[in-house]
């Protein structure tokens, strides 16, 4: 057993961290919230695509780098730490993963090389509540929220009755941008009126969600650690009553609790990363555990980061609210945590602990 990143994975993360600190600073996220900076975000996507980020876990046979899923997890952690405004979640964690795992050879050959290059972006509409109806190879869907839905070229759609790939460049696709509480991760609704589809035969909504949940857990982990670092940085400097705020035990203990929550979430995420990379039968349980743990950790860290900053933490100028927003968006975007509680319990029930 070996329960840590490899040297290569650490190096990749380190490189990503440095690049994002420079190219995706909080000022960019804040600009995006105000409807500016889209061009800088797009340029960043082009830059990281050239570095191969979207290609990391896509097999070499389909134009990827084939570095494996743990490397992608390490990268996701950095994307989360920086809250980088990149379409990794819809295009890579959801669409590319779904196609790579459940697509036919022809589908993989058609879509994965272009996704790997960052040339096209995919999105996904996945979950038991997705009410897509198929007649023959035609699909109809009422307006449904999709991350990067306006930018995407294709969508993976998976609901109770099946999974499909839809080319979004055809007639019958209606997209409407929506404002969300975190415009740095843009969303749109997508509706289909009898559009042409290809079925994705070897995967279902639950597996697509499980794979993405592991990767999103790493983003949440990075975000949670960023909040802890921010809070620590502030309480070490800020003084009240003649001493630094970080010397008060109420403050120290809260930060210790955040640290513990983050570490437990990290450990659960590592286990899930292994299950994902090994495509282990434990994946469903491991993914739900990672998701539950990371969601709780990010939420706690993001809330308390504002609290520990005092009044300044509640301002637009401080970066705290960026994580407050992102933590809520990541908590809800892959179905809310309550459904993951149920998934986790159902997986335990299936595994039948003696």
């Amino acid at each position: 057993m070996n329960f840590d990143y490899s040297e290569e994975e650490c190096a990749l993360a380190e490189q990503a961290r440095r690049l994002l600190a420079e190219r995706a600073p909080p000022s960019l996220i804040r600009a995006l919230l105000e409807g500016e900076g889209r061009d800088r975000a797009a340029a960043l996507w082009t830059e990281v695509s050239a570095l191969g980020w979207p290609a990391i876990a896509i097999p070499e046979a389909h134009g990827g780098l084939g570095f494996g899923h743990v490397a992608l997890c390490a990268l996701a952690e950095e994307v989360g730490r920086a809250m980088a405004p990149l379409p990794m979640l819809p295009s890579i964690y959801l669409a590319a993963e779904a196609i790579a795992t459940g697509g036919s050879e022809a589908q993989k050959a058609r879509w994965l090389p272009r996704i790997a290059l960052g040339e096209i972006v995919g999105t996904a509409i996945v979950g038991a509540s997705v009410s897509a109806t198929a007649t023959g190879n035609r699909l109809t869907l009422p307006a449904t929220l999709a991350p990067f839905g306006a930018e995407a070229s294709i969508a993976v759609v998976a609901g109770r009755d099946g999974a499909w790939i839809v080319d979004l460049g055809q007639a019958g696709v209606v997209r409407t941008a929506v404002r969300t509480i975190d415009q740095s991760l843009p969303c749109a609704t997508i509706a289909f009126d009898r559009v042409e589809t290809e079925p994705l035969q070897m995967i279902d909504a639950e597996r697509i969600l499980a794979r993405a949940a592991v990767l999103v857990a790493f983003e949440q982990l990075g975000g949670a650690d960023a909040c802890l670092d921010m809070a620590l940085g502030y309480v070490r400097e800020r003084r009240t009553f003649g001493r630094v705020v970080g010397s008060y035990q109420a403050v120290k203990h809260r930060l210790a609790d955040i640290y513990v929550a983050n570490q437990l979430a990290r450990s659960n995420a590592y286990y899930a990363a292994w299950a994902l990379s090994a495509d282990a039968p434990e994946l469903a349980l491991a993914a739900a555990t990672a998701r539950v743990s990371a969601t709780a950790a990010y939420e706690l860290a993001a809330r308390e980061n504002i609290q520990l900053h005092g009044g300044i933490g509640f301002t637009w100028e401080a970066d705290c609210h960026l994580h407050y927003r992102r933590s809520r968006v990541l908590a809800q975007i892959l179905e809310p945590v309550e459904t993951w509680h149920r998934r986790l319990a159902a997986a335990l029930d299936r595994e039948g602990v003696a």
Partner: protein
Amino acid sequence: MDFEDTAEEARFRREAREWLQTHAPRYAPPAGESDAEGFALLPLARRWQTAKAEARYARISWPEAHGGRGGTAMDEVIFEEEQRRFALPPDPFGISLGMCIPTMMQWAEPQVAERFVRPALRGEEIWCQLFSEPSAGSDLANVRTRAVRDGDGWIVSGQKVWTTGAHVSDWGTILVRTDPAAEKYAGLSYFWFNMKSPGVEVRPIRQASGHAAFNEVFFTEVRIPDAQRLGAVGGGWKVAISTLMNERMAVNEADIANITIDDVVRMARRPGWTGGRPIDDPAACAQIATLYACSMGVRYTRYRMLTQLSRGGLPGPEAAIGKLALARNIQDMAAFAMEMRGPAGIIDDRGGDPDLAAMQEAWFYSAGLRIAGGTDEILRNTIAERVLGLPQEARVDRGVPFNQLTS
């Protein structure tokens, strides 16, 4: 990131599993009679310990010369995982083998340590740790039990308290004050001694649960030879810290309580008090998921630390995470499990329903677990100061001779 056994680990796991399958079933405890500390079933626990020692499974990572196998910390984990599949008596040797003997191995003359390792490993001799006193718990360095020089020995007088297992112990390790005029942390010394020495009086203390696993220990002019000192005169604090480091690494779910999340899940899959299965109820699912995520988080955090150790790292203060998270989680798990039985969950059910009885035992024990071996608050201080680098608590006891401190 690799969760699979290596080839050697797989071989060891097979071997351990086969051995356990042959031997473990003979040591199954009678229903409803165990206590969390393991003293209620001591004779059975001793026989089980001897069997493990003879097969060199008692302390796998100890050197072969000390009755171990020179195995890795990961081998210990593998054995624990396999052992968890069997109903076995709770382990009353944790303090002996997790704290006292490692301290002896580190600080005593090799031939002295040699004399004690085997009997402890076989469960024949039990050790206790006499650190806490009425006015020294979290503030451990505040010990007042006095040792006064007398020729080639020391005369010890005073009182220890909360000493787990003192009533069944043969030997003890003790922290005493040898120089009250020195600064608080500098006037302490550390000894090992015979619990049957004249002047040692052990009085069991009844715990919140009703059992009596810990004790008051009174010392009336007890003679301890100077040859039984560990570390320098006045250097006892350093030895005590090394013991506490051993304690931190020892924590894992199966070791510190007799229930695990698996037991909670098993109960949740059976009809609850309303007839339905709790695991089908969304509100119960939320609790199960949260408890499970914490249990697994602690388990995998330990694996991460073992990975660090195997790469040559040292156990650091972050080892405090385990006990801090676990003690609370055990309390939550036990309360939740009792609730699944509805109003009947409060019926003292020893001898009746073994699942419920174990949860009730854990529910009591966990309240003590949050205090023993560093309270939740002290562990948070440790994490905040030593891991996160925040300022230390204000101190008024530094740099002042102990006998001039007002407390």
